[in-house]
Each structure stands twice: as C-alpha cells, then as structure tokens.
C-alpha cells in the first residue's frame, strides 16, 4: 500500500469491477503501451479542498469507439475530461491516453488528440482562416493549406473564412471550433457538449460530420452531452456519472433494458433522481 493510499478512504481501494463489458476492466489490460486502449481512466479522483469532484472513476475506451460521458450538472464530467486532457492533475489515480499518463507525459501525445469545449473559445479577434492557420501550425499539420480547404468544405466555412471569429453566430462559432478540433486529424477526440448552442437542424448536421469523421479516421471519441438523442445516435457505449462517481455503464440499448426504461433519456432522469 502506497503512502497516498493510506490516506485515502477505504472505498478508493476497492478493486475495479468488471461487470457489463470488457471495456470496463482496467486490471486485465496493459495501460502503458502503444497497444493500450485509447483512453484508460484508473481510480481517478479529484479533490477540491474537502469536496471530491471525481471519486474513484474507472473506465476504458478502446480504440475506434465513441463513448458518451453523461451526468447532470456537477456530476464530474468536465473535471474527468479535463484530467483526461491533462489540464487538471488528479489527486489520485491516473488518466492515460494512447498509453501515456496525462499528468506526466501529456506532451508525448497532445499532437495526436484534440478537443472542443464550450468553456473554451477561439481567439475572437482573429479571422476563421487565421485561427485555423495558427492551430494547424501549433499541431504541426503537414499540408496545412490542403487540410484547411478540406475542413472548409466539410464544415461549409467558405462564407465565414475571412470574418472575425468573435463576430460569428453561436452556430458558426461551434462549426469553427469543431473544425479546429479536427485540424490535426486526431486519433482521440474529446468533445464537451459539441452541439449545445445549435438548433436541432444544425446539431444533426454537425453530428453527421462528426460521425463521418469518426468512421473515416477510425478515431476514438469521448463525448459529454446532455442531449440523449445525440448520445444514442453517436455512442457505442455510455458512462453515466453522478456526484463524481460512475453510477452506470453500458451500451445505450442495454442500459434502457437494465433500468426498465423506454430510452436513455428516462435512464438519465431515473439515475439522476435515485443517485
């Protein structure tokens, strides 16, 4: 038992359970190799003063899967994603991406991943083209001009390309932010409520683009969303959090069946109330 473990509550030391899918059992998988899963979250905890924002979270996302991370406000999704991105250092446990510990080795893997979040904005004073150029160069994208042309076509950005990003509508900004998230053709894509500010038509359009990208690239996607229809359409697997802990995992259809609900929406509401 390590020094840290001696100070942790007993519940943090309980073994990882392997219940509904093989994707959950971290213990049987080597997490620190190139063959490692795209994302592996192992006994992840984050404490802010006396409050455990994330409390003993475990899950694995195999390469090429799209996994939904769900939960109400304050459930710990954003903190979990921030630890997976390496922006927040865990109090205990670890978040691995493509075999690298994000607390200590993030720079080895950052060029192979990307993210989009409503908490983060692209520089508003730069034009869309300038933003894509800057981020493309930061990610070391080869044939950047050609890549930008592809994204312009995929996300229909031609009409806003030379406009200042800060003056775009919310929907246009989201399209640009998603284009930025795909600029380096990432193997691992983290999306925090990617369609939150879009009307249903535009949201469906962005979803279709994301699905097409995921299929073409074989990318791994971790998606946080409050839109259950979106999650059902995009995700192979779902992890539901409440009060910093994982309260359920499974394929969307299985979860509905397990909790005797009609759909994921009902499962979400049921778990939010019970938890």
């Amino acid at each position, binding site marked *: 038992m390590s020094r840290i473990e001696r100070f942790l509550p007993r519940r943090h030391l309980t073994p990882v359970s392997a219940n509904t899918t093989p994707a959950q059992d971290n213990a049987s998988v080597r997490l620190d190799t190139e063959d490692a899963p795209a994302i592996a979250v192992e006994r992840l905890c*984050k404490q*802010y003063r006396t409050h455990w*924002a994330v409390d003993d979270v475990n899950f694995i996302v195999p390469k090429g899967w799209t996994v939904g991370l769900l939960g109400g406000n304050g459930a710990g999704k*954003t*903190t979990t994603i*921030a630890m997976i*991105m*390496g*922006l*927040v*250092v865990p109090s205990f446990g670890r978040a691995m991406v493509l075999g690298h510990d994000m607390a200590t080795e993030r*720079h080895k893997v*950052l*060029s192979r*991943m*990307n*993210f989009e*979040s409503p*908490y*983060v*904005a*692209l*520089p*508003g*004073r*730069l*034009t869309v083209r*300038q933003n894509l*150029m*800057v*981020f493309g*160069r*930061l*990610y*070391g994208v080869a044939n950047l001009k050609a890549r930008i042309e592809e994204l312009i076509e995929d996300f229909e950005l031609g009409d806003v390309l030379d406009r*200042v990003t800060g003056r775009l509508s919310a929907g246009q900004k989201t399209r640009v932010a998603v284009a*930025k998230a795909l600029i380096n053709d990432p193997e691992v894509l983290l999306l925090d409520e990617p369609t939150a500010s879009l009307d249903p038509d535009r949201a469906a359009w962005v979803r279709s683009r994301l699905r097409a990208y995921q299929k073409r690239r074989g990318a791994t996607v971790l998606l946080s969303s409050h839109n259950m229809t979106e999650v059902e359409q995009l995700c192979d697997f779902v992890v539901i959090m409440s009060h910093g802990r994982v309260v359920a995992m499974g394929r969307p259809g299985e979860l509905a069946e397990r909790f005797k609900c009609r759909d994921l929406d009902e499962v979400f509401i049921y778990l939010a109330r019970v938890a």
Partner: protein
Amino acid sequence: MTQSLNRIAAMTARYYYILRSSSLRLLEIIYWPAMQMLVWGFLYTYLYDSKSAMASTAGLLLGAVLLWDVLFRGQLGFTFTFLEEIWSRNLANLMMSPLQPFELAASLMLMSLIRLVIGTLPVMLLTFVLFGFNVFAMGPGLIVFFLNLVLTSWAIGLVVAGLVIRQGFGAESLAYSIMIVLLPLCCVYYPVAALPLWLHPVAWSLTPTYVFEGMRAVLLDGTFRTDLMIECLALNAVYLGMGFTTFVALLQSARHKGGLLTMGE
C-alpha cells in the same frame, strides 16, 4: 527543433494578427510613451535653458525616462500579450495543443520586443526632433542597456503571467503595478548613493540599477562601465531562469488547482 520554431512562429503570428487588427491598439502602444516624453521633454528644455546647476544634468532625466520606458513597456508588452489569451478564453486551447511552456514564453518575448520597437523607436526620434536630445549618442552602450532592461522585463513578465495563471484575474492588476515597486529602488533618476546605506544591497540586487548607473557614467563622464554591464547580464541570466522556473511551477500548480479549463470566464 523545427517543430518548436514553427510553434513559436505560429504564436507570434497569432499575436501579430491581433496587433494588426486594430489601429487603435497600435496607436496606444505609441501614445503613452509619447505623452510621457512630451512632459519630461518640456521639463528638460526648461532646465536646459535656465542655465542653473540643474542644466548639466537635464539630459540624464530624458535618458532615464527613455530607458525606464524600455523596462516598463517591455514588461507590459509581455504581460498584456499573455493576458490576451485569458481575455479570449483561449488558454486551454493552447495548453491542450503541443505548445510547450518555453515556446509560449519565447513567442511572448518576441512580441514584447516587437511592441517595444513600435513604441519606443518613434518616441526616441521624437525626443531628438523636438528637444534635441539624441539617445543614440550613448553609442553601442545603448544596445547593452536596452538588452539588459528587456531581459529584466521578461523575467518579471514571466512571474506575472504565472501568477495570473495560478490566481486568475485577481493577479491581473500586477501587470500594471509591479514595476512601480521597483521605481524607487532601482535608482532611475538618482544615483545609488542617494539611497540610505541599508537600501544599497537591495538596489544592487536589482538589474535596472546597473543600467541606470551605467547610463549616468556614459552621460556624465563619457565612460562605459563594462564591469557593471557584465554583472547585470549575469544577474539577468539568473533572474530569467528564475522567472521561467516560477512560470512553469505556477502553471503546474494551476493544473493541480484545476482552473485552467475555465480561466477567463
């Protein structure tokens, strides 16, 4: 290495785009130093014409104002360019990209230099045209003074940027106020001898003191104090190293505290 240079170039381009996007911003960079120079320039003219005992030292005043501005504007240029990332809620995008802390620091340094040249060069020319004071008369020593002051301004800028990352907007006012603490101690307008004896070690621990003493030696005695400048450069190398270490430590601390994602909200 090439990747690293490419990222520094990308960040510098990003800051250059911002600067280029607003002529008001460009004007602002020149405005404050120019106004300050006008005030001190007229005082210089008055003292020079008065034939008083002060007349012989009037040039020192303008030299000191110009060099102090290099230090002050250098730090402001560094810190404000960094604050742009906080104001635009872009910091997490950068922290999630392959950009390394030293690359971010290097691009901020470059931008501080660009802003400094834009801000001080016209003012130096203005001083010559309006008041007949030629700062370039200090000779090649001016380059060494400039270099030392810029290095100091970057060291301070790194600490302020780190504090803003760690403490959030609460530390933003440091960008304006931190240099004022140095003003009385680094003997801009008077020699170290004017300070009480117990403050001498403090003054000599500050790199600008060496520059301003060096400037007085050039303007009053016509001698360039190489010894002072070597000590100053050595001290600056230490401070710059300490500044960068502090920046990285505060960044790491912010990752523990968990504020990077929502910074700027």
